[in-house]
């Protein structure tokens, strides 16, 4: 046996020994069979009273090998000695009876005289003490259950046709036996015992299902054939016919599965546990625990279940919930989750997804299908939200979400707590207010949607345009004007990567921000009276107007007539202006200013203020001198006397004001204000400062930070395209 030698080298003696035994003994129990039998024994002994018939059923017609396997399985499963347990549960008489049911020496040396399965041997003649009890009582005389069972077991069957060589034992004994023949004869003896026990379990009051299951469990194909043959020959009806006659529903299913397979597959057991009266959670868990970690078996079980009974996952969902269901599903692991996903994609209930902890096990395309399926739920509950959150929540979905923003938004609408902004897309919203110099407030909202995919940053700015009647807004022209100012830049890093920023103003009837579009005073021509603002456009405007208002739409404030603090904050730059050469300190000048602003009579205040500012050098030739010096004076004023700006307004009271007050105040305020000549500072009424770019890095700060957040390892800044 060169093969065997090789095998012994590679897998070891013990393994080969088991293999040889299995090869040699066609009726050897599979591990599953042995376990199922051990469990039937345990069940029979557990609880109130003892189910002796089930115990007899287990041992009836077993070989010594089989009994050994059962005993070993029992020990492995329950950590107890079967012999001890049986001795505790059964009376001496019952034990003696048990001893008659199983032969001690199986196929090895055929002692049975029967050469044909149809020819019943006398069970008593082959009966030996059953192995589980090495110290069992000595074999009693053959009684073969005749006293306990209503079935006439010891009696030979009528064997109506008996065409086969149903000869007596001596004939058989006289025949030279091949090992195969001997095995068949021995099996026939055991089959007869089993068949008779089945018969007895089905007769009389009611049906003893547990005894039937016990007998049918753990029979090899040859044994099952032998049992069925004996049964039909002896009783004139097929075993299956009688089983169907006596049982129904899940019990019949269990019997038929055993008759067909000799054991319950995991799928069968699960089905039995789930379908029987009330779910047998312990049994479900036990089967699932047995499967846990073995992907191939889990896959087979799920497929087997589907073929026979439908979806295992749906069945589990229907019968379990909460932590229990989670545990059950976890036992099915990866394969279970994949199956759930496949079933949902194929139209199954999205509930199956609740237990799936991680959706990266399938493609992003499949995940999108799952999202759509969950959205079809009439009620999207917490668990569904959890599914959506887990699907969208992984890093690899960031780009997918960016490309499927409406689906993503729909998930949020349905309650999924997923961020409105990912690193690939988002909505920016801010609002800003600016105090006007002569009172009043201008207010603006920045709103845009951005998408950062494939090294391109697209910025969509939705506006609900409301054209007056007869007005056709020139959207294309406006976009061109925006292109000329804003779409000239990229976000860059030193390594050379450039991410162009593309701004698009979109007429969107669902936008929250509205802009009216009206005719020009002189139609088709921009008159100076046509003053556009962030809420009103004209058909025709200066090329710089839309780009300036667009800056507001993306959240940027104005950069004209701002306070110094605003100006530095907004522009990041300073204006130096003239230094203080007045010979007086900034604090003294502030005091002078305060005195002037509170001069009595009020009508002369503006003259006094002008005089003070001129003496300080903050008005030169009547012109405002902005810069640090002016700011220092204002700082001193604010520290010593309250807010200068408030005083400039309040000390030229509105009611008592004259036209020149207005002009004076404007001039004074200009001294203490700042402006840039960028697109946000000067909307282009007059030629902009050639040294300043219309768009400065500060204007694209938000977009640099979007890119930076997505690509944190590089350092990004604004650059040309």
């Amino acid at each position, binding site marked *: 046996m060169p093969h065997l030698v090789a095998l012994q080298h590679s897998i070891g003696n013990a393994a080969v020994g088991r293999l040889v035994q299995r090869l040699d003994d066609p009726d050897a129990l599979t591990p599953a069979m042995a376990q199922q039998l051990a469990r039937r024994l345990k069940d029979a002994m557990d609880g109130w009273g003892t189910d002796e018939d089930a115990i007899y059923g287990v041992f009836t017609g077993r070989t010594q090998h089989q009994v050994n396997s059962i005993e070993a399985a029992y020990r492995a499963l329950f950590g107890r000695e079967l012999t001890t347990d049986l001795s505790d549960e059964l009376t001496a008489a019952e034990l003696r009876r048990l001893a008659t049911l199983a032969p001690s020496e199986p196929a090895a040396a055929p002692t049975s005289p029967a050469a044909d399965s149809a020819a019943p041997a006398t069970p008593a003649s082959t009966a030996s003490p059953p192995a589980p009890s090495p110290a069992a009582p000595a074999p009693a005389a053959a009684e073969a259950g005749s006293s306990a069972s209503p079935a006439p077991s010891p009696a030979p069957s009528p064997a109506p046709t008996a065409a086969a060589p149903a000869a007596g034992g001596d004939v058989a004994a006289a025949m030279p036996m091949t090992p195969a023949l001997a095995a068949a004869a021995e099996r026939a003896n055991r089959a007869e015992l089993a068949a008779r026990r089945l018969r007895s379990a089905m007769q009389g009051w009611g049906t003893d299902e547990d005894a039937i299951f016990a007998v049918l469990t753990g029979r090899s194909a040859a044994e099952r054939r032998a049992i069925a043959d004996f049964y039909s020959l002896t009783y004139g009806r097929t075993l299956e016919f009688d089983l169907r006659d006596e049982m129904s529903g899940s019990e019949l299913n269990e019997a038929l599965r055993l008759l067909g397979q000799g054991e319950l597959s995991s799928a069968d057991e699960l089905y039995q546990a789930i379908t029987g009266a009330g779910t047998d959670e312990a049994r479900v868990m036990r089967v699932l625990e047995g499967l846990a970690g073995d992907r191939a078996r889990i896959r087979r079980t799920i497929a087997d279940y589907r073929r026979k009974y439908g979806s295992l996952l749906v069945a589990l969902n229907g019968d379990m919930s909460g932590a229990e269901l989670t545990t059950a599903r976890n036992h099915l692991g990866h394969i279970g989750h994949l199956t759930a996903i496949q079933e949902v994609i194929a139209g199954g209930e999205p509930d199956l997804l609740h237990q799936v902890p991680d959706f990266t096990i399938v493609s992003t395309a499949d995940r999108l299908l799952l999202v759509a399926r969950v959205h079809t739920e009439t009620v999207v509950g917490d668990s569904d939200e959890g599914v959506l959150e887990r699907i969208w929540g992984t890093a690899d979905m960031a780009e997918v979400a960016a490309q499927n923003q409406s689906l993503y938004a729909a998930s949020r609408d349905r309650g999924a707590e997923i961020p409105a902004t990912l690193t690939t897309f988002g909505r920016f919203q801010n609002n800003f207010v600016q105090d006007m110099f002569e009172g009043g407030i201008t207010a603006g909202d920045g709103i845009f949607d951005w998408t950062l995919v494939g090294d391109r940053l697209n910025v969509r700015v939705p506006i609900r345009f409301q054209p007056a009647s007869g007005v056709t807004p020139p959207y294309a022209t406006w976009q061109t004007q925006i292109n000329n100012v804003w779409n000239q830049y990229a976000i860059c890093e030193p390594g050379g990567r450039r991410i162009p920023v593309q701004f698009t103003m979109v007429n969107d009837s669902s936008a929250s921000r509205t802009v009216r579009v009206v005719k020009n005073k002189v139609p088709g021509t921009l008159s*100076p009276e046509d003053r556009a603002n962030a809420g009103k456009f004209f058909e*025709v405007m200066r090329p710089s107007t839309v780009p300036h*208002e667009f800056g507001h739409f993306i959240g940027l*404030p104005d950069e004209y007539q701002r306070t110094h603090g605003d100006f530095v904050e907004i522009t990041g730059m300073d204006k130096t202006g003239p230094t203080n050469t007045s010979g007086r300190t900034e604090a003294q000048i502030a005091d002078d200013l305060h005195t002037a602003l509170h001069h009595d009579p009020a009508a002369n205040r503006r003259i006094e203020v002008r005089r003070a500012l001129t003496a300080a050098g903050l008005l030169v030739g009547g012109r405002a001198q902005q810069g640090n010096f002016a700011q220092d004076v204002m700082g001193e004023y604010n520290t010593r006397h309250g807010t200068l700006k408030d005083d400039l307004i309040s000390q030229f009271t509105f009611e008592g004001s004259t036209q020149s007050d207005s002009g004076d105040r*404007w001039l004074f305020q200009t001294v203490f204000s700042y402006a840039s000549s960028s697109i946000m500072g000067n909307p282009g009424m007059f030629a902009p400062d050639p040294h300043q770019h219309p768009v400065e890095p500060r204007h694209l700060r938000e977009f640099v930070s979007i890119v930076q957040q997505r690509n944190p390892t590089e350092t990004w800044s604004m650059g040309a395209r």
Partner: protein
Amino acid sequence: MKKLTFRRTSDSPPAEHEMLEIDADGSFAMWRSTGRMVGRFAGVVPDIEALVHDADRALRSSPAGSDRIAMDATLERIDVDGHQAAIAADLTLDGWWGVLLKRCRALMSELCEQPKAAIEIDLDNPSAPRLVHRGTEPLVLELIQPAATVGVWRDRDQTAEYWGYADIIETVSAEHGWQLEIPVPDARPRHGDNVIVEIALDVYHDGVPLRVHVSAVAEIAAPDGGVPPNAV
């Protein structure tokens, strides 16, 4: 009503700070910083009874409006004897304050017919627009190479923009009959073009230099230009 003040304010360039003051007897004083005529205006408000009537009714109702306006918009405020209403210049108000507001807006334009010390642009010749004094009193102008921008428009497009300036640096007291031509030699609009001229300069008002923006709009009516334009 004893006194009504109507103000227009915008920080957005060109900054507007215009004010109209009207007394109950109908006398008014007005300052305009932008528009076709800028400077000081004074005289008598026509139909003052109707204005007083509207103002009195407004006084008996609740002030309305908001001084929170859109970016770059212009804020308008009416003050009647200390009671105020505020609104963005491109919006309307309901109620009696709304009626009064509408009247004030119209007056700020109509009362330009009564200049006291003002300037406007004469656009007879688009390539040589002229600043012209209007009114009876002098207006001190700071002329530092005053420049004119001539925009040419046709079919909603600006087809050209020209620029020219008068090469002078001086402070003048413009009086009746004063005018200054600002050559923009390249400006040759064609028949059917709309032309817009804008000039910015500082005007001294009680010794305070104030930036004003004066403008004019005309349609070139004849093929060879030079024909009297329809000033708007």
